[in-house]
Protein backbone atom coordinates (compact mmCIF):
# COMPACT_ATOMS: atom_id res chain seq x y z
CA UNK A 1 0.00 0.00 0.00
CA UNK A 2 1.42 3.36 -1.05
CA UNK A 3 1.95 6.02 1.62
CA UNK A 4 0.12 9.31 1.34
CA UNK A 5 2.34 12.15 0.15
CA UNK A 6 2.08 15.94 0.25
CA UNK A 7 3.88 18.88 -1.28
CA UNK A 8 5.20 21.04 1.56
CA UNK A 9 7.33 23.62 -0.23
CA UNK A 10 7.88 25.20 -3.64
CA UNK A 11 10.44 27.54 -5.14
CA UNK A 12 10.99 29.12 -8.53
CA UNK A 13 13.27 31.65 -10.17
CA UNK A 14 12.15 34.95 -11.66
CA UNK A 15 11.98 33.75 -15.25
CA UNK A 16 13.63 35.71 -18.04
CA UNK A 17 14.62 35.17 -21.65
CA UNK A 18 18.33 35.45 -20.77
CA UNK A 19 19.81 34.95 -17.32
CA UNK A 20 23.36 35.93 -18.16
CA UNK A 21 24.10 36.53 -14.46
CA UNK A 22 23.98 32.83 -13.58
CA UNK A 23 25.04 29.53 -15.06
CA UNK A 24 22.69 26.53 -15.00
CA UNK A 25 23.90 25.22 -11.63
CA UNK A 26 23.53 28.62 -9.98
CA UNK A 27 20.05 29.05 -11.43
CA UNK A 28 19.02 25.63 -10.06
CA UNK A 29 20.41 26.71 -6.67
CA UNK A 30 18.10 29.74 -6.60
CA UNK A 31 15.00 27.57 -7.02
CA UNK A 32 16.19 24.94 -4.52
CA UNK A 33 17.01 27.57 -1.90
CA UNK A 34 13.60 29.19 -2.30
CA UNK A 35 11.81 25.82 -1.99
CA UNK A 36 13.73 24.94 1.18
CA UNK A 37 13.05 28.38 2.66
CA UNK A 38 9.37 27.99 1.83
CA UNK A 39 9.09 24.89 4.06
CA UNK A 40 11.82 25.86 6.54
CA UNK A 41 13.97 22.82 5.83
CA UNK A 42 17.70 22.62 5.07
CA UNK A 43 19.39 20.58 2.38
CA UNK A 44 20.42 18.14 5.14
CA UNK A 45 16.75 17.25 5.58
CA UNK A 46 16.44 16.10 1.95
CA UNK A 47 16.74 12.32 1.53
CA UNK A 48 16.84 12.14 -2.29
CA UNK A 49 16.68 14.30 -5.41
CA UNK A 50 14.91 13.83 -8.74
CA UNK A 51 16.07 16.27 -11.42
CA UNK A 52 15.33 16.76 -15.10
CA UNK A 53 15.61 18.99 -18.13
CA UNK A 54 15.36 18.50 -21.89
CA UNK A 55 17.88 16.10 -23.37
CA UNK A 56 20.37 17.79 -25.68
CA UNK A 57 19.16 21.35 -25.06
CA UNK A 58 22.19 23.07 -23.56
CA UNK A 59 24.48 20.42 -25.01
CA UNK A 60 25.26 19.40 -21.43
CA UNK A 61 24.52 15.77 -20.72
CA UNK A 62 24.55 13.91 -17.38
CA UNK A 63 23.06 17.03 -15.79
CA UNK A 64 22.30 15.06 -12.63
CA UNK A 65 26.01 14.84 -11.85
CA UNK A 66 26.97 18.18 -13.43
CA UNK A 67 24.50 20.17 -11.31
CA UNK A 68 25.10 18.75 -7.82
CA UNK A 69 26.58 21.91 -6.32
CA UNK A 70 23.38 23.76 -7.23
CA UNK A 71 20.88 20.99 -6.54
CA UNK A 72 22.38 20.05 -3.19
CA UNK A 73 22.88 16.50 -4.38
CA UNK A 74 26.44 15.95 -3.09
CA UNK A 75 26.49 12.54 -1.37
CA UNK A 76 22.76 12.00 -1.90
CA UNK A 77 20.80 9.61 -4.12
CA UNK A 78 19.93 11.43 -7.36
CA UNK A 79 17.78 10.23 -10.23
CA UNK A 80 17.60 12.05 -13.56
CA UNK A 81 14.30 11.89 -15.40
CA UNK A 82 13.99 13.37 -18.87
CA UNK A 83 10.79 12.92 -20.88
CA UNK A 84 10.75 15.98 -23.14
CA UNK A 85 8.05 18.53 -22.35
CA UNK A 86 6.58 16.29 -19.67
CA UNK A 87 9.91 16.26 -17.80
CA UNK A 88 8.56 18.53 -15.05
CA UNK A 89 5.53 16.41 -14.29
CA UNK A 90 7.64 13.28 -14.65
CA UNK A 91 10.09 14.47 -11.98
CA UNK A 92 7.11 15.36 -9.75
CA UNK A 93 5.53 11.96 -10.27
CA UNK A 94 8.88 10.22 -9.71
CA UNK A 95 9.40 12.18 -6.48
CA UNK A 96 5.90 11.14 -5.41
CA UNK A 97 6.77 7.48 -6.15
CA UNK A 98 9.94 7.82 -4.03
CA UNK A 99 8.01 9.02 -0.98
CA UNK A 100 4.90 6.88 -1.54
CA UNK A 101 7.12 3.79 -1.67
CA UNK A 102 8.10 4.30 1.96
CA UNK A 103 11.81 4.36 1.18
CA UNK A 104 12.29 8.16 1.41
CA UNK A 105 10.59 10.73 3.67
CA UNK A 106 11.59 14.05 2.06
CA UNK A 107 12.38 14.27 -1.64
CA UNK A 108 13.28 17.27 -3.75
CA UNK A 109 12.02 17.47 -7.36
CA UNK A 110 13.85 19.89 -9.66
CA UNK A 111 13.15 20.97 -13.24
CA UNK A 112 15.23 23.53 -15.08
CA UNK A 113 16.16 24.90 -18.48
CA UNK A 114 18.42 27.57 -19.83
CA UNK A 115 16.83 28.10 -23.21
CA UNK A 116 19.14 31.03 -23.90
CA UNK A 117 22.01 28.52 -24.05
CA UNK A 118 20.21 26.11 -26.35
CA UNK A 119 19.35 25.57 -29.98
CA UNK A 120 15.77 24.76 -29.03
CA UNK A 121 14.37 23.99 -32.47
CA UNK A 122 17.43 22.02 -33.55
CA UNK A 123 17.36 19.97 -30.34
CA UNK A 124 13.65 19.25 -30.68
CA UNK A 125 14.17 18.15 -34.28
CA UNK A 126 16.64 15.56 -33.04
CA UNK A 127 13.79 14.07 -30.94
CA UNK A 128 12.10 13.04 -34.20
CA UNK A 129 12.82 9.92 -36.22
CA UNK A 130 16.03 10.46 -38.24
CA UNK A 131 14.90 8.37 -41.20
CA UNK A 132 11.30 9.40 -41.76
CA UNK A 133 10.33 12.55 -39.87
CA UNK A 134 13.41 14.74 -39.44
CA UNK A 135 13.57 15.80 -43.09
CA UNK A 136 10.26 17.69 -42.98
CA UNK A 137 9.90 18.34 -39.22
CA UNK A 138 10.85 21.77 -37.95
CA UNK A 139 10.40 21.62 -34.21
CA UNK A 140 7.48 22.16 -31.90
CA UNK A 141 5.64 25.00 -33.61
CA UNK A 142 4.66 23.50 -36.99
CA UNK A 143 3.85 20.19 -35.35
CA UNK A 144 1.35 21.96 -33.09
CA UNK A 145 0.23 24.04 -36.07
CA UNK A 146 -0.82 20.94 -37.98
CA UNK A 147 -2.95 19.93 -35.00
CA UNK A 148 -4.54 23.37 -35.00
CA UNK A 149 -5.26 23.18 -38.75
CA UNK A 150 -7.09 19.88 -38.29
CA UNK A 151 -9.05 21.17 -35.25
CA UNK A 152 -10.14 24.30 -37.12
CA UNK A 153 -11.32 22.16 -40.04
CA UNK A 154 -13.18 19.73 -37.78
CA UNK A 155 -15.05 22.25 -35.61
CA UNK A 156 -14.83 25.58 -37.42
CA UNK A 157 -12.70 27.14 -34.67
CA UNK A 158 -10.96 30.37 -35.70
CA UNK A 159 -7.65 32.14 -35.17
CA UNK A 160 -9.55 34.67 -33.06
CA UNK A 161 -10.82 31.92 -30.74
CA UNK A 162 -7.23 30.91 -30.13
CA UNK A 163 -6.18 34.53 -29.59
CA UNK A 164 -8.69 34.73 -26.74
CA UNK A 165 -6.74 31.99 -24.93
CA UNK A 166 -3.41 33.80 -25.38
CA UNK A 167 -4.96 37.03 -24.08
CA UNK A 168 -6.33 35.20 -21.02
CA UNK A 169 -2.95 33.75 -20.07
CA UNK A 170 -1.05 36.98 -20.65
CA UNK A 171 -3.67 38.89 -18.64
CA UNK A 172 -3.29 36.44 -15.77
CA UNK A 173 0.48 36.95 -15.89
CA UNK A 174 -0.16 40.50 -14.66
CA UNK A 175 -0.54 38.86 -11.22
CA UNK A 176 2.63 36.77 -11.35
CA UNK A 177 5.95 38.59 -10.80
CA UNK A 178 7.84 35.34 -11.57
CA UNK A 179 6.46 35.13 -15.13
CA UNK A 180 8.72 36.07 -18.04
CA UNK A 181 5.81 38.03 -19.52
CA UNK A 182 4.92 39.73 -16.22
CA UNK A 183 3.28 43.10 -16.82
CA UNK A 184 3.17 42.67 -20.60
CA UNK A 185 -0.56 42.30 -21.37
CA UNK A 186 -1.76 41.85 -24.95
CA UNK A 187 -5.04 42.30 -26.84
CA UNK A 188 -6.76 40.07 -29.38
CA UNK A 189 -5.74 42.58 -32.07
CA UNK A 190 -2.10 42.26 -30.97
CA UNK A 191 -2.28 38.51 -31.41
CA UNK A 192 -4.03 38.70 -34.79
CA UNK A 193 -1.50 41.22 -36.09
CA UNK A 194 1.60 39.40 -34.81
CA UNK A 195 3.92 37.65 -37.26
CA UNK A 196 2.71 34.38 -38.78
CA UNK A 197 5.36 31.87 -37.67
CA UNK A 198 3.72 28.76 -39.05
CA UNK A 199 0.10 28.92 -40.20
CA UNK A 200 -2.09 29.20 -38.17
CA UNK A 201 0.30 29.96 -35.28
CA UNK A 202 1.38 33.56 -34.87
CA UNK A 203 4.09 34.90 -32.59
CA UNK A 204 1.71 35.76 -29.73
CA UNK A 205 -0.08 32.39 -29.96
CA UNK A 206 2.96 30.53 -28.75
CA UNK A 207 5.16 30.25 -25.65
CA UNK A 208 8.39 32.22 -25.24
CA UNK A 209 11.79 30.64 -24.51
CA UNK A 210 12.74 31.15 -20.89
CA UNK A 211 15.64 30.63 -18.54
CA UNK A 212 14.34 29.30 -15.24
CA UNK A 213 14.16 26.59 -12.63
CA UNK A 214 11.60 25.19 -10.24
CA UNK A 215 11.94 23.02 -7.13
CA UNK A 216 9.26 21.24 -5.11
CA UNK A 217 9.60 19.42 -1.77
CA UNK A 218 7.57 16.23 -1.24
CA UNK A 219 7.04 14.76 2.25
CA UNK A 220 5.56 11.59 3.72
CA UNK A 221 2.19 11.66 5.45
CA UNK A 222 3.64 11.25 8.96
CA UNK A 223 5.73 14.42 8.71
CA UNK A 224 3.98 16.60 6.10
CA UNK A 225 1.67 18.21 8.64
CA UNK A 226 4.61 19.04 10.92
CA UNK A 227 6.51 20.74 8.09
CA UNK A 228 3.59 22.68 6.66
CA UNK A 229 0.34 23.69 8.39
CA UNK A 230 -1.47 23.45 5.06
CA UNK A 231 0.26 21.02 2.70
CA UNK A 232 -0.98 20.22 -0.81
CA UNK A 233 -1.84 16.53 -0.76
CA UNK A 234 -0.88 14.55 -3.83
CA UNK A 235 -4.22 12.97 -4.58
CA UNK A 236 -3.56 11.17 -7.85
CA UNK A 237 -1.46 11.13 -10.99
CA UNK A 238 -1.36 9.39 -14.35
CA UNK A 239 0.99 9.39 -17.34
CA UNK A 240 0.26 8.29 -20.91
CA UNK A 241 2.91 8.09 -23.60
CA UNK A 242 1.95 7.22 -27.17
CA UNK A 243 4.12 5.97 -30.02
CA UNK A 244 6.50 8.51 -31.53
CA UNK A 245 5.57 8.13 -35.18
CA UNK A 246 4.14 11.55 -35.96
CA UNK A 247 1.88 9.92 -38.54
CA UNK A 248 0.20 7.60 -36.06
CA UNK A 249 -1.56 10.43 -34.23
CA UNK A 250 -5.29 10.62 -34.93
CA UNK A 251 -6.12 14.31 -34.67
CA UNK A 252 -9.86 13.79 -35.10
CA UNK A 253 -10.35 11.86 -31.86
CA UNK A 254 -8.88 14.58 -29.65
CA UNK A 255 -5.67 14.40 -27.59
CA UNK A 256 -5.91 10.72 -26.67
CA UNK A 257 -3.04 10.63 -24.16
CA UNK A 258 -4.61 13.46 -22.16
CA UNK A 259 -8.08 11.88 -22.31
CA UNK A 260 -6.71 8.61 -20.93
CA UNK A 261 -4.44 10.16 -18.30
CA UNK A 262 -7.25 12.43 -17.09
CA UNK A 263 -9.71 9.56 -16.88
CA UNK A 264 -7.37 7.54 -14.68
CA UNK A 265 -6.27 10.44 -12.44
CA UNK A 266 -9.83 11.76 -12.02
CA UNK A 267 -11.18 8.28 -11.19
CA UNK A 268 -8.54 7.85 -8.49
CA UNK A 269 -9.19 11.34 -7.10
CA UNK A 270 -13.00 11.06 -7.17
CA UNK A 271 -13.33 13.88 -9.71
CA UNK A 272 -16.59 13.17 -11.56
CA UNK A 273 -17.32 16.52 -13.20
CA UNK A 274 -13.99 18.30 -13.77
CA UNK A 275 -15.51 21.77 -14.22
CA UNK A 276 -17.43 21.42 -10.93
CA UNK A 277 -15.12 19.31 -8.80
CA UNK A 278 -11.87 21.12 -9.59
CA UNK A 279 -11.31 24.70 -8.40
CA UNK A 280 -8.31 25.74 -10.49
CA UNK A 281 -6.23 24.28 -13.34
CA UNK A 282 -2.59 24.93 -14.23
CA UNK A 283 -2.35 23.43 -17.69
CA UNK A 284 0.64 22.83 -19.91
CA UNK A 285 -0.72 24.74 -22.92
CA UNK A 286 2.32 25.60 -25.07
CA UNK A 287 0.21 27.35 -27.68
CA UNK A 288 -3.17 29.04 -27.73
CA UNK A 289 -5.08 26.42 -29.75
CA UNK A 290 -4.32 23.86 -27.04
CA UNK A 291 -6.44 26.01 -24.74
CA UNK A 292 -9.40 25.23 -26.99
CA UNK A 293 -8.85 21.58 -27.89
CA UNK A 294 -7.08 20.06 -24.90
CA UNK A 295 -9.59 21.32 -22.32
CA UNK A 296 -12.05 19.10 -24.20
CA UNK A 297 -9.76 16.10 -23.62
CA UNK A 298 -9.80 16.95 -19.90
CA UNK A 299 -13.61 16.90 -19.90
CA UNK A 300 -14.16 20.57 -19.00
CA UNK A 301 -16.49 20.74 -22.02
CA UNK A 302 -17.51 18.52 -24.93
CA UNK A 303 -15.73 18.02 -28.27
CA UNK A 304 -15.78 21.24 -30.30
CA UNK A 305 -17.12 23.26 -27.35
CA UNK A 306 -13.73 24.69 -26.32
CA UNK A 307 -14.13 28.07 -28.05
CA UNK A 308 -17.58 28.75 -26.53
CA UNK A 309 -16.34 27.67 -23.08
CA UNK A 310 -13.43 30.12 -23.33
CA UNK A 311 -15.42 33.09 -24.70
CA UNK A 312 -17.99 32.68 -21.92
CA UNK A 313 -15.27 33.55 -19.42
CA UNK A 314 -15.39 30.21 -17.59
CA UNK A 315 -11.60 29.98 -17.49
CA UNK A 316 -10.81 33.57 -16.47
CA UNK A 317 -9.98 34.56 -12.89
CA UNK A 318 -13.37 34.62 -11.14
CA UNK A 319 -14.82 32.17 -13.67
CA UNK A 320 -16.17 28.67 -13.13
CA UNK A 321 -12.76 27.02 -13.45
CA UNK A 322 -9.89 29.54 -13.60
CA UNK A 323 -7.07 28.29 -15.82
CA UNK A 324 -3.43 29.29 -15.52
CA UNK A 325 -3.57 31.99 -12.82
CA UNK A 326 0.22 32.06 -13.21
CA UNK A 327 -0.01 33.14 -16.85
CA UNK A 328 0.76 29.61 -17.97
CA UNK A 329 3.24 28.38 -20.53
CA UNK A 330 2.42 31.21 -22.94
CA UNK A 331 3.94 33.55 -20.33
CA UNK A 332 6.90 31.40 -19.23
CA UNK A 333 8.50 28.37 -20.82
CA UNK A 334 11.73 27.07 -19.31
CA UNK A 335 10.95 23.68 -20.79
CA UNK A 336 12.37 21.18 -18.28
CA UNK A 337 10.83 23.29 -15.50
CA UNK A 338 7.57 24.10 -17.27
CA UNK A 339 5.49 21.12 -16.18
CA UNK A 340 6.93 21.23 -12.65
CA UNK A 341 5.87 24.88 -12.51
CA UNK A 342 2.33 23.69 -13.23
CA UNK A 343 2.54 21.36 -10.20
CA UNK A 344 4.16 24.07 -8.03
CA UNK A 345 1.55 26.66 -9.03
CA UNK A 346 -1.29 24.19 -8.35
CA UNK A 347 0.31 23.50 -4.94
CA UNK A 348 0.52 27.24 -4.19
CA UNK A 349 -3.21 27.52 -4.90
CA UNK A 350 -4.05 24.64 -2.53
CA UNK A 351 -1.69 25.99 0.16
CA UNK A 352 -3.19 29.49 -0.11
CA UNK A 353 0.16 31.01 -1.06
CA UNK A 354 -0.83 32.33 -4.49
CA UNK A 355 -0.58 36.01 -3.55
CA UNK A 356 -2.21 38.21 -6.19
CA UNK A 357 -2.85 35.16 -8.37
CA UNK A 358 -4.65 33.20 -5.62
CA UNK A 359 -8.04 31.73 -6.54
CA UNK A 360 -10.33 31.84 -3.46
CA UNK A 361 -11.15 28.66 -1.53
CA UNK A 362 -9.24 26.11 -3.58
CA UNK A 363 -9.85 22.53 -2.51
CA UNK A 364 -8.83 20.58 -5.61
CA UNK A 365 -6.25 21.74 -8.16
CA UNK A 366 -5.22 20.19 -11.47
CA UNK A 367 -1.76 20.28 -13.08
CA UNK A 368 -0.86 18.80 -16.46
CA UNK A 369 2.27 18.15 -18.48
CA UNK A 370 2.60 17.82 -22.24
CA UNK A 371 5.47 16.80 -24.44
CA UNK A 372 7.25 14.22 -26.51
CA UNK A 373 5.06 13.08 -29.32
CA UNK A 374 1.67 14.02 -27.90
CA UNK A 375 2.42 12.71 -24.39
CA UNK A 376 0.42 13.75 -21.33
CA UNK A 377 0.74 13.70 -17.55
CA UNK A 378 -2.03 14.61 -15.11
CA UNK A 379 -1.66 15.45 -11.39
CA UNK A 380 -4.47 16.24 -8.93
CA UNK A 381 -3.62 18.02 -5.66
CA UNK A 382 -6.01 18.58 -2.77
CA UNK A 383 -6.39 20.44 0.50
CA UNK A 384 -7.87 17.22 1.90
CA UNK A 385 -5.66 14.34 2.90
CA UNK A 386 -6.51 11.36 0.64
CA UNK A 387 -8.63 8.72 2.36
Amino acid at each position, binding site marked *: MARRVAIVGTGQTHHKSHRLDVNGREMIHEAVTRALEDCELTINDVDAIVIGNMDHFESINCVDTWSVEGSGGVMKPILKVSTGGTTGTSVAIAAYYHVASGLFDRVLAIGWEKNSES*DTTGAIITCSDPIWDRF*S*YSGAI*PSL*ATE*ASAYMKQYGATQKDAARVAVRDRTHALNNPYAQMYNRPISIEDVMESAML*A*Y*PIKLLDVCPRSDGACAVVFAAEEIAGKISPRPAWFKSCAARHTTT*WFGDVDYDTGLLSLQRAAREAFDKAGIRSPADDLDVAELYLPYSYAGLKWIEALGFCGPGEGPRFIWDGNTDMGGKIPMNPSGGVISTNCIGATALLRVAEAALQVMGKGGKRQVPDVKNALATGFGGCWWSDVVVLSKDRPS
Partner: protein
Amino acid sequence: MKNTELLTIRSGDTGMPYEWSIGKYGSRFFREIREHQRFLGIRCPGCGKVRVPPRRLCGPCFRELDELVELSDTGIITAFSVVNYPFIDPDTGLQRPIPYTYGYIRIDGSDNIFSHIINETDESRIKVGMKVRAVFRKPEEMEGNIRDIRYFEIIR
Protein backbone atom coordinates in the same frame (compact mmCIF):
# COMPACT_ATOMS: atom_id res chain seq x y z
CA MET B 1 20.68 -0.71 -54.78
CA LYS B 2 20.39 -4.51 -55.00
CA ASN B 3 16.99 -6.00 -54.37
CA THR B 4 18.02 -7.49 -51.05
CA GLU B 5 20.17 -4.62 -49.87
CA LEU B 6 19.46 -3.29 -46.35
CA LEU B 7 19.85 0.47 -46.44
CA THR B 8 21.14 3.02 -43.98
CA ILE B 9 20.84 6.79 -43.89
CA ARG B 10 23.89 8.97 -43.41
CA SER B 11 23.66 12.26 -41.56
CA GLY B 12 24.36 15.34 -43.70
CA ASP B 13 27.63 16.54 -45.12
CA THR B 14 28.79 18.19 -41.92
CA GLY B 15 30.54 15.09 -40.68
CA MET B 16 28.14 13.94 -37.98
CA PRO B 17 29.28 10.38 -37.28
CA TYR B 18 25.81 8.81 -37.19
CA GLU B 19 24.42 6.04 -39.32
CA TRP B 20 20.84 4.88 -38.78
CA SER B 21 19.45 1.47 -39.82
CA ILE B 22 16.22 1.68 -41.80
CA GLY B 23 15.36 -2.00 -41.38
CA LYS B 24 14.09 -4.46 -43.95
CA TYR B 25 10.60 -3.09 -44.56
CA GLY B 26 11.78 0.53 -44.71
CA SER B 27 14.41 -0.53 -47.21
CA ARG B 28 11.66 -2.28 -49.25
CA PHE B 29 9.64 0.97 -49.12
CA PHE B 30 12.41 2.91 -50.84
CA ARG B 31 12.96 0.17 -53.43
CA GLU B 32 9.21 0.19 -54.19
CA ILE B 33 9.36 3.94 -54.77
CA ARG B 34 12.28 3.56 -57.15
CA GLU B 35 10.84 0.66 -59.12
CA HIS B 36 7.11 1.43 -59.13
CA GLN B 37 6.74 5.06 -57.93
CA ARG B 38 4.19 4.00 -55.31
CA PHE B 39 4.04 3.57 -51.56
CA LEU B 40 4.17 0.44 -49.49
CA GLY B 41 2.33 0.01 -46.20
CA ILE B 42 2.04 -2.79 -43.67
CA ARG B 43 -1.05 -4.33 -42.05
CA CYS B 44 -1.15 -5.31 -38.39
CA PRO B 45 -2.98 -8.61 -37.86
CA GLY B 46 -3.96 -7.40 -34.38
CA CYS B 47 -5.66 -4.06 -34.99
CA GLY B 48 -6.02 -4.49 -38.77
CA LYS B 49 -4.58 -1.03 -39.44
CA VAL B 50 -2.46 -0.37 -42.51
CA ARG B 51 0.40 2.00 -41.68
CA VAL B 52 2.89 3.72 -43.90
CA PRO B 53 5.90 3.72 -43.88
CA PRO B 54 6.02 -0.02 -43.17
CA ARG B 55 7.64 -0.90 -39.86
CA ARG B 56 8.29 -4.20 -38.19
CA LEU B 57 6.40 -3.49 -34.97
CA CYS B 58 2.91 -2.29 -34.02
CA GLY B 59 3.30 -0.24 -30.83
CA PRO B 60 -0.31 -0.43 -29.55
CA CYS B 61 -0.56 -4.21 -30.23
CA PHE B 62 3.10 -4.89 -29.34
CA ARG B 63 3.54 -7.50 -32.06
CA GLU B 64 5.63 -8.16 -35.16
CA LEU B 65 4.23 -7.41 -38.60
CA ASP B 66 4.86 -9.01 -41.98
CA GLU B 67 1.91 -8.32 -44.32
CA LEU B 68 3.11 -5.65 -46.76
CA VAL B 69 0.37 -3.80 -48.67
CA GLU B 70 0.85 -2.04 -52.02
CA LEU B 71 -0.56 1.48 -52.03
CA SER B 72 -0.87 4.19 -54.67
CA ASP B 73 1.01 7.51 -54.92
CA THR B 74 -1.98 9.64 -53.90
CA GLY B 75 -3.52 10.78 -50.64
CA ILE B 76 -5.47 13.45 -48.72
CA ILE B 77 -4.10 16.39 -46.69
CA THR B 78 -5.19 15.82 -43.07
CA ALA B 79 -3.21 18.70 -41.54
CA PHE B 80 -0.58 21.22 -42.60
CA SER B 81 1.43 24.27 -41.62
CA VAL B 82 3.36 26.82 -43.67
CA VAL B 83 6.71 27.26 -41.92
CA ASN B 84 7.89 30.88 -42.04
CA TYR B 85 10.58 31.16 -39.38
CA PRO B 86 14.28 30.46 -39.92
CA PHE B 87 16.12 27.69 -38.11
CA ILE B 88 19.23 25.56 -38.46
CA ASP B 89 18.54 22.05 -39.70
CA PRO B 90 20.50 19.70 -37.42
CA ASP B 91 20.85 17.23 -40.31
CA THR B 92 22.80 19.67 -42.46
CA GLY B 93 24.06 22.37 -40.13
CA LEU B 94 22.53 24.87 -42.56
CA GLN B 95 19.42 27.03 -42.44
CA ARG B 96 16.51 25.12 -43.92
CA PRO B 97 14.97 27.00 -46.87
CA ILE B 98 11.73 28.78 -45.92
CA PRO B 99 8.88 29.14 -46.47
CA TYR B 100 7.89 25.54 -46.91
CA THR B 101 4.72 23.62 -46.16
CA TYR B 102 4.85 20.79 -43.65
CA GLY B 103 2.02 18.39 -44.43
CA TYR B 104 0.40 15.29 -42.99
CA ILE B 105 -0.92 13.12 -45.82
CA ARG B 106 -3.26 10.15 -45.46
CA ILE B 107 -1.95 7.91 -48.27
CA ASP B 108 -4.92 6.25 -50.01
CA GLY B 109 -5.45 2.78 -48.57
CA SER B 110 -3.66 3.51 -45.29
CA ASP B 111 -5.03 4.25 -41.81
CA ASN B 112 -2.35 6.60 -40.50
CA ILE B 113 -0.74 9.76 -41.87
CA PHE B 114 2.61 10.42 -43.50
CA SER B 115 4.64 13.55 -42.82
CA HIS B 116 6.33 15.29 -45.75
CA ILE B 117 6.26 18.61 -47.60
CA ILE B 118 3.63 20.04 -49.95
CA ASN B 119 4.69 22.38 -52.78
CA GLU B 120 2.17 25.12 -52.01
CA THR B 121 3.12 27.88 -49.56
CA ASP B 122 0.16 30.20 -50.18
CA GLU B 123 -2.05 29.31 -47.21
CA SER B 124 -5.16 30.57 -49.02
CA ARG B 125 -4.64 27.92 -51.72
CA ILE B 126 -4.27 24.93 -49.41
CA LYS B 127 -6.94 23.25 -47.33
CA VAL B 128 -7.34 20.17 -45.16
CA GLY B 129 -9.08 17.54 -47.30
CA MET B 130 -7.38 18.35 -50.60
CA LYS B 131 -6.17 15.47 -52.75
CA VAL B 132 -2.42 15.25 -53.39
CA ARG B 133 -0.02 13.15 -55.46
CA ALA B 134 3.62 12.36 -54.66
CA VAL B 135 6.28 13.72 -56.99
CA PHE B 136 9.39 11.53 -56.98
CA ARG B 137 12.99 12.00 -58.04
CA LYS B 138 13.94 10.36 -61.30
CA PRO B 139 14.65 6.67 -60.56
CA GLU B 140 18.29 7.00 -61.60
CA GLU B 141 18.72 9.85 -59.09
CA MET B 142 17.16 8.03 -56.17
CA GLU B 143 19.35 7.39 -53.11
CA GLY B 144 17.07 5.31 -50.90
CA ASN B 145 16.02 8.02 -48.49
CA ILE B 146 13.04 10.27 -47.72
CA ARG B 147 14.26 12.86 -50.24
CA ASP B 148 13.46 10.40 -53.04
CA ILE B 149 9.96 11.83 -52.56
CA ARG B 150 10.52 15.43 -53.67
CA TYR B 151 7.15 16.70 -52.37
CA PHE B 152 3.41 16.21 -52.64
CA GLU B 153 1.50 18.36 -55.11
CA ILE B 154 -2.14 19.32 -54.87
CA ILE B 155 -4.40 17.80 -57.53
CA ARG B 156 -6.63 20.74 -58.53
